[in-house]
C-alpha cells in the first residue's frame, strides 16, 4: 500500500540518521530525492508521508524495549521536519505556512490517538517529537544560523526564527490541558522546556511575551477548573507544584516578565493559590536589591520608578472605557453612577474563592479599571507634579472611593483586592496605592457607616497575603505595618478583630 511504501522510505531515513551526522550532505541528497521521485512533491503527499512517519514512530516507541533506545524514529522525524523547513527555497510566508502544515499533521495524528486510545495513549513520543524539534532548531539557529553557508538563506532563516517560536507557541496553546488532559504533564514540561521558555522570555522586542502569557493563563485556567473546596485530585496537586517551580524559575531569570504582565497573570491565578499570587507580585527588577519592609518606609525617593505594563488594561474596559477616561479627565457624579452600575455581570460566575463561591460582579473589569488607574497615575506623575495625583481630590482617588462607597461588600472586596495587587516592589504605583489605602482606612466621609466594612476588607486583603509562606510582596508588609502604626492599640479593639480570636492574636502579636 502507499502507506507501507511511506513506512519503507521513512525507515531508510531513520537508518541514515544513525549512520551520518546531521550536517552531512547526504541528508540533503536524500531529501532532494524524496522530491524528485515524487514522494513528497505535493501538499497531499507530504501530509500523508508525515502522518505515516509519525504513526510508525509512535508504534516503534510503544514496541521498543523500554530500557533501550525508544525514540530513534521520533528523533529522526524531528530531524526530517527541521530539514524540510530549512533546505527548501521559501520566502518567509511560505516557510511559516509549511511549518504550520507540518505541525497541523502532527496535531491531527496526536488528537486522534488521544481521543481513541484512552487507556493506551502515551504522551511521551509526542513530547519527544516537540522536544527534539526545539533542540534541533536550537542547534541550527546558533549565532544567527552561522552554520548555513549561503548568506541569503541565513538572512531568511534569521527572519523566520521568531515565527518558529510563535507558531510553536500557538500549537502548544491548542494542546493545552483543558483540551487534551492526557498530555497535561508533557505540555507543562514543553512550556518550561529549556530551549523554549528562556528563548521566549528573552525574545527580541519581547515578541514572544503575548503567547507566553496565554500559555501560563492556560495552565492556571486548568488549575482553577479543578481546584475545588475540600477536594483536590492528586494529579492537580502535582501540576500545581510544577507550575510553582516554573514561576519561581521565571521570577529568578526574567522577573521583568512577571512585573510587566502582573495584570493579566494575577487575575487568572486561582483565588485560593495565595502563595503563587505572591510570587508573581513579589517579583523585583533584576537591578534592584530586595528592600527590608521592616526598616524601609514608602517615600517619594525610594518609589520613583514607574513600572512598565506590557498589556494596556484599558483594552479590557469594554463599554466603560469612555466614561472612565472622561471621569479621570473631568469627574462627575453621573459618570460615576454609570461606572458603578456597569461593573456587574449578566450571568453568575462560579469561582472557588476564600469565603465565597460566586461572582455577580465582573472581576476582570474591576481589575482593568484599577490597573488603568495605576497606569494613568504613573503617566501623570511623569508629566506633572506628584501633588496633583497624591491628593484626595484627584479623580484617581475619587473614582475608586466612589466605586467602593456605591458598591456592596462584593464590589468593595474585588476593588480592594485589585488595589492591593498594585502593592509590589518600590515604585510609583506602590506608593500611590499605599497612599490611597491608608486614606481610605482612616477616611471619615464613608457614607452609611461603611468605614468598619472597608477597614475589615482592607485588613483581610493584606493579611491573607502575609499569613501564608513567603514570599510576601514588599509593600503589602509595609502597608500593613503602616496601618498598625496609624491605628496603634485601637486596632485590636475593633469589633471585627476582637470577634475572631485567631485574628486578634495575630494582630496583637504584631
Amino acid at each position: 500500500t502507499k502507506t507501507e511504501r511511506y513506512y519503507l522510505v521513512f525507515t531508510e531515513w531513520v537508518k541514515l540518521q544513525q549512520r551520518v551526522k546531521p550536517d552531512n550532505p547526504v541528508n540533503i541528497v536524500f531529501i532532494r530525492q524524496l522530491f524528485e521521485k515524487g514522494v513528497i512533491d505535493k501538499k497531499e503527499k507530504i501530509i500523508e508521508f508525515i502522518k505515516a512517519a509519525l504513526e510508525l514512530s509512535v508504534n516503534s516507541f510503544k514496541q521498543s524495549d523500554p530500557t533501550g533506545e525508544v525514540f530513534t524514529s521520533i528523533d529522526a522525524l524531528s530531524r526530517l521536519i527541521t530539514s524540510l523547513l530549512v533546505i527548501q527555497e521559501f520566502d518567509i510566508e511560505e516557510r511559516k505556512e509549511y511549518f504550520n502544515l507540518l505541525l497541523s499533521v502532527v496535531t491531527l495524528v496526536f488528537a486522534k490517538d488521544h481521543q481513541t486510545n484512552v487507556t493506551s495513549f502515551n504522551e511521551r513520543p509526542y513530547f519527544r517529537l516537540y522536544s527534539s524539534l526545539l533542540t534541533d532548531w536550537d542547534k541550527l539557529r546558533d549565532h544567527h544560523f552561522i552554520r548555513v553557508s549561503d548568506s541569503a538563506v541565513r538572512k531568511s532563516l534569521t527572519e523566520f526564527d521568531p515565527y518558529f517560536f510563535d507558531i510553536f507557541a500557538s500549537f502548544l496553546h491548542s494542546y493545552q490541558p483543558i483540551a487534551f488532559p492526557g498530555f497535561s504533564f508533557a505540555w507543562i514540561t514543553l512550556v518550561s522546556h529549556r530551549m523554549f521558555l528562556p528563548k521566549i522570555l528573552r525574545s527580541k522586542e519581547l515578541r514572544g511575551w503575548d503567547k507566553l502569557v496565554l500559555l501560563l493563563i492556560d495552565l492556571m485556567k486548568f488549575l482553577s477548573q479543578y481546584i475545588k473546596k475540600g477536594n483536590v485530585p492528586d494529579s492537580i496537586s502535582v501540576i500545581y507544584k510544577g507550575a510553582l517551580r516554573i514561576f519561581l524559575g521565571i521570577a529568578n531569570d526574567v522577573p521583568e516578565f512577571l512585573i510587566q504582565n502582573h495584570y493579566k497573570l494575577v487575575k487568572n491565578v486561582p483565588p485560593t493559590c495565595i502563595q503563587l499570587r505572591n510570587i508573581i507580585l513579589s517579583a523585583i527588577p533584576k537591578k534592584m536589591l530586595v528592600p527590608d519592609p521592616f526598616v524601609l518606609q514608602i517615600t517619594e525617593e525610594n518609589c520613583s520608578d514607574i513600572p512598565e505594563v506590557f498589556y494596556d488594561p484599558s483594552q479590557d474596559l469594554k463599554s466603560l472605557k469612555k466614561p472612565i477616561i472622561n471621569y479621570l479627565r473631568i469627574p462627575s457624579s453621573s459618570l460615576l453612577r454609570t461606572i458603578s452600575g456597569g461593573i456587574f455581570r449578566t450571568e453568575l460566575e462560579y469561582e472557588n474563592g476564600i469565603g465565597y463561591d460566586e461572582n455577580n460582579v465582573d472581576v476582570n473589569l474591576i481589575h482593568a479599571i484599577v490597573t488603568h488607574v495605576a497606569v494613568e497615575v504613573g503617566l501623570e506623575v511623569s508629566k506633572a507634579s506628584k501633588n496633583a495625583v497624591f491628593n484626595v481630590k484627584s479623580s484617581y482617588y475619587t473614582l475608586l472611593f466612589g466605586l467602593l462607597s456605591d458598591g456592596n461588600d462584593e464590589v468593595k472586596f474585588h476593588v480592594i483586592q485589585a488595589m492591593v495587587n498594585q502593592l509590589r516592589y518600590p515604585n510609583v504605583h506602590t506608593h500611590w496605592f499605599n497612599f490611597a489605602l491608608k486614606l481610605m482606612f482612616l477616611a471619615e466621609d464613608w457614607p452609611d457607616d461603611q468605614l468598619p466594612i472597608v477597614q475589615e476588607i482592607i485588613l483581610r486583603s493584606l493579611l491573607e497575603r502575609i499569613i501564608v509562606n513567603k514570599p510576601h510582596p514588599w509593600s503589602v508588609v509595609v502597608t500593613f505595618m503602616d496601618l498598625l502604626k496609624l491605628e496603634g492599640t485601637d486596632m485590636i479593639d475593633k469589633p471585627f478583630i476582637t470577634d475572631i480570636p485567631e485574628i486578634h492574636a495575630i494582630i496583637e502579636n504584631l
Partner: protein
Amino acid sequence: YGLKDLVPVLRHEPTYDSNMTLGIDLNSLLNSLDITKDTKSHHCLDAFESPWVETSRSEVQPTFYIPESFRNIKGMLGTAQVEFTSVNRDQPRISLLQDETLFYLFYKHPGSVIQELTYLELRKRNWRYHKTLKVWLTKDPMMEPVVARDSMSERGSYVFFDPQRWEKCQRDFVLHYNAIM
C-alpha cells in the same frame, strides 16, 4: 469577604488545600533550581530539566556552541577527523598496535572497518568479546577453567578489559560460550 473567612485557612481546615493556600516553604524548591541569595546572575531556566524535582534526576544538555574554528585546529591532538578508509593500508598497521590502542579503536569507531579490523586482531591475540557485557576478556594463563556438565559454559579466572576504568582486571567468572564472539 471579611477576616472571618481567613479562619479556615489559619486552622488548616480541609476546605482549602493548605499546600496551595498557605503554601509551602520554598527553600527546597529554590535549592533544586540552584537559586540562592548568592547566585543572582544564575539562569536556572537554561538548564531546566523538568518542572518536577522527581523527574529531574539527570542533567540535560543546555544550549552551547562550539565555533568551527575550535573544531578543526590543525596539528592539535584528537581534533583531526581520523578516517580509516583503506583496509589495505590500515590492516598491516593494526598488528603493530598495543592491546589498549586496539580497545580504543574498537570502542571509538563503531560500525566501521577499523572496528572489524581490531576485532579480528584482538581475536588473534586470544581475546574474546562478551556480547552482553560488551567487554573483551581473555583466559588467565595461571588457571585452567572447569567446563560445566552441559558443555555450555565454564567457570574460571579471566582477565577483563574494563572500558570504564580503562584497565585490565582479573575476575572469577562463569563464562557462557554463546555469550562470546
